[in-house]
């Protein structure tokens, strides 16, 4: 995925993906169900958005078992943290320039 002309990463164009990154930025690790509580979307849609971020290398996945139930935890990678911070900075800059015009 590329960076679009205005300097924003395309991975963050979706509100859900941006939301996932925001939540994971302030929480160490969250499992799928805890993550789902913050979004009003179906399991399938959330899973596919998570997959996009995972492919991008922005989030990591850790699979384990609680008893016999599989438990998947998501966390932000270093690359993800950097990309997210850059995204925030770019947003701020864009807002400032919008205000000036």
């Amino acid at each position, binding site marked *: 995925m590329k960076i679009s002309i205005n300097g924003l990463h395309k991975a963050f164009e979706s509100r859900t993906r941006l939301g996932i990154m*925001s939540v994971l930025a*302030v929480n160490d690790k969250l499992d799928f169900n805890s993550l789902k509580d913050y979004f009003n979307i179906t399991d399938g849609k959330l899973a596919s958005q998570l997959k996009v971020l995972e492919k991008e290398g922005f989030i990591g996945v850790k699979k384990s078992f609680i008893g016999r139930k599989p438990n998947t935890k998501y966390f932000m990678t270093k690359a993800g943290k950097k990309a997210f911070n850059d995204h925030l900075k770019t*947003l701020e800059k864009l807002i400032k320039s919008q205000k000036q015009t």
Partner: protein
Amino acid sequence: MKESPDYARDLIEIRSMMERSTKFLSLSGLAGVMAGIYALSGAWISYQVLDFNPTGLADSTISAEPLSPTLLRVVLIAIAVLILALGTAVFLSWKKASKSGEKLWNATTRRVINAMAIPLVAGGLLIVAMIAKGLTGFMAPFSLLFYGLALYNASKFTYEEVKYMGLIEIALGLFSSYYIEYGTLCWAIGFGGVHIIYGIYLHYKYEKSENIN
């Protein structure tokens, strides 16, 4: 790409997601006021009707036998106050959460409960041990002290004001550990007065403004 992307909304969304996922904001001010009213009624009944006001560590009027009828009634009143207050808090928080389209039982709620449960259970067991040993004068101070510790510990996951509320409860608990004769009074202030004042304050600060937005 969108025609005119709303960057400011993106930032607002990011902030709100971060806050929602780290802070328990379903706490209702009204629940605090109700808890305060239950506590004041409980303290009044204990003091006026049952004449319960230990003036020393092991009060001679009630500790002759470890479980006198008066003491038993006071303990029952305390448990009733606790159940009523908790029930009201859970119900009102659930209502507030469902109004803002959230689930009450999420990762943040679990964190708040964990943070509160450890000091509260430890304190509760200590108080049971104290009662068993006849040290009834420590019931009120220690419940204030451990409740304050629980609030202080949970405050990082909810409104910041809860931290100062915790500190006030700790101060009242320590004060009445030394001045046992003020135990019932401090308990009424800590669980009654402080809850009512904070409840009203939180309601006006956070709930009124939410209605306007």
